[in-house]
């Protein structure tokens, strides 16, 4: 990760002499990474070309699973639904986090208490949050004599957004606070002497200096939102259904449902959709890293 995020990281390559024992320190993590990520990942790609029910009884079917995945309307719908969700949540979470962080670094009373309070939702698991918010939303809607969240896809969408903002904003806020504290105060002094207004200071000094934080936060919100599963499952479960398509089912949940669906080809198709999903997330997040990193400056 540090290769992605830190400019200083680059200098590592210029030091050719590295102690061998460094490798030993890396080994446990590396082994865990291979066992927990690399191996299942390669096996997953391999399996996406097979029809199977359990992993050691497989039948080769070529690209048939991929063909079926692209013909699967629910998969395409979940893609666009997810994209919409990612865009809205990316913007909202970062805006909220940024301004909360800003408010909590200008020295108002009880900043530390607020920081803790805003961070707290992160400590609760996604499934629990989903169920709790489901109850909250339904309770409110019932009082307004309106039907449940799970019967209206627009409400389901905004419900998910509210839930995710509430949960993620606190975490991003911490990163932004660190960012704010890293902006050297002499820059502010210099700009003040030059007669900059508060707004100009924010746009010309703070935001450029905060770009590394913005890169990290947007990367995290982007990938988190793309891969969202627990909250989606617990809040709406994909309901309501319209014309045979689960309207609020995001990609991860849709793949899971495909995988455990009926028929002998279900698992293979689910696997192929997983591989496609992976490629989409990688391409989009690399693109985002490239775009935001270009804007990073050094003081």
């Amino acid at each position, binding site marked *: 990760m540090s290769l992605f995020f830190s400019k200083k990281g680059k200098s590592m390559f210029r030091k050719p002499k590295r102690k061998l024992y460094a490798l030993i320190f890396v080994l446990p993590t590396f082994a865990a990474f291979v066992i927990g990520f690399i191996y299942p990942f390669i096996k997953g790609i391999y399996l996406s070309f097979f029809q199977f029910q359990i992993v050691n009884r497989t039948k080769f079917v070529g690209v048939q699973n991929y063909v079926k995945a692209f013909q699967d309307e629910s998969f395409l719908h979940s893609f666009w639904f997810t994209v919409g969700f990612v865009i809205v949540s990316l913007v909202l979470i970062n805006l909220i986090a940024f301004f909360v962080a800003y408010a909590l670094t200008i020295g108002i009373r009880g900043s530390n208490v607020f920081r803790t309070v805003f961070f707290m939702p992160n400590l609760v698991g996604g499934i629990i949050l989903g169920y709790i918010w*489901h109850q909250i939303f339904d309770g409110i809607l019932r009082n307004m004599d309106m*039907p*449940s969240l799970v019967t209206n896809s627009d409400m389901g969408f905004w419900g998910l957004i509210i839930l995710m903002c509430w949960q993620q904003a606190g975490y991003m806020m911490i990163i932004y606070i660190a960012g704010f504290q890293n902006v050297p105060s002499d820059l502010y002094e210099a700009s003040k002497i030059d007669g900059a207004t508060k707004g100009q200071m924010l746009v010309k000094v703070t935001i450029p200096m905060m770009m590394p934080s913005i890169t990290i936060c947007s990367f995290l919100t982007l990938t988190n939102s793309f891969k969202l599963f627990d909250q989606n499952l617990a809040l709406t479960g994909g309901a*309501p*259904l*319209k014309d*045979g398509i689960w309207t609020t089912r995001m990609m991860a949940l849709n793949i899971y449902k495909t995988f455990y669906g*009926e028929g002998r080809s279900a698992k293979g198709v689910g696997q192929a959709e997983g591989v496609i999903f992976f490629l989409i997330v990688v391409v989009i997040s690399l693109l985002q890293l490239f775009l935001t990193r270009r804007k990073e400056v050094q003081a």
Partner: protein
Amino acid sequence: MKKTHIKRAAALAVAALMAGTALAGCGTSGTNSDTASGSTKAEASANKGDASKGKVYYLNFKPEQDKAWQELAKAYKDEKGVEVTVKTAAEGTYEQTLTSEMNKDNAPTLFQVNGPVGLAKWGEFCEDLTNSEIVGNLTSKDFALEQDGKTLGVAYVIETYGIIYNKTLLQKYCDSDFATVKSIDEINSFDKLKTVADEIQANKDALGVDGAFTSAGMDSSSDWRFKTHLANLPIYFEYKDDNVTDTDAIKGTYLDNYKNIFDLYITDSTCKPTELASKTGENAETEFKDGKAVFFQNGTWEYDALSKSLKDDEMGMLPIYIGAGDEAKQGLCTGTENYWCVNNSASDDDKAATLEFINWCVSSEAGTKAMAEKMNFTIPFKDAKESNNALVKIDTELTKAGKTPVSWNFTTMPSEEWKNGVGAALTQYAAGTGDWDAVKTAFVDGWKTEKAKAAE
């Protein structure tokens, strides 16, 4: 004639088993008692492995019976010395648990499928049970699950559902001035049921109830009562008309009747239809137990929970009338969606041990007693003991009185996705955000798409 055949088979199987044990004792394993082969078919499969050396791993589907199974497994070990491991999948995750367990080296030797649809997926893992003892012990061939002429699954429990009612409250209604229907026995059609429910609803304060029916909750803990069990009725009557047992394309002939009964459930209810989306199974159960509702659509498995608050003679069960077919003759919905399958990739010893274990469960004194009294199961086997379940007894009486049980056709429903689709459409319909056409679409069009998927 059949009985002697079974007895002979059992005797031979036991003999073979003892021979196997004796040989194992001498340390000359690998010698199979092939000498007995060819005498009867029944022991042929038991003969392949040595049951006393095998292990049984049962992946149980029913969480409410987990404790009883653990006890039975222990009793079996004490009696036979064979280890039986029982694991239970969390509610609603059987498919996922089964998938991951089957991938392991120590895969379940005994698992279950829910009928033909489940078998289409897991059939290649099922041992052919055609000539096994347990299949011979079934009371009827109907309880064997077949594919391509081979018996791959055995039903192990028969269940019944209908409209459970609170006898005290219903009698109170019948005795009231406003009652058109003056006796419980008169309720024998949808029209009568509707009259009764409407009148109870209109006079709920006089009767001290919140509604005629318990809340038809559409939360996942309760929606199966409507998307699966209630949906069985229009399917049953359509199959009957068309003289089929399964179809790739359902026509939805009786969907209007389905609408009528569902409308009745949600209007003559303890709560507003808009609140149903988040009502749970527990909500409905509590309402019924507290005497806040007269009718509760549920089944014999609910007896355990209900018997804690209601006495046996305070419970009754009515057929689910939807205004189709010959209603005077209609019985309760009786059938099964629980079939045992033996994993064919288990070792021969384990397979033999598993077959012997399940046969012991349904034929031995201890096994049948546990299934009848601890699990409250009615099992479709010759040696079955009568269950203590009062709701089961109602079914037996109705059948004796000449009513025709409604069979369980939801085992032919295309998939979980189909059920969920119907459930979601019903939820929206109840909430007023969707119309009945959406239910029809989910029912009819969804059937076709999901059946096509399952056939792939």
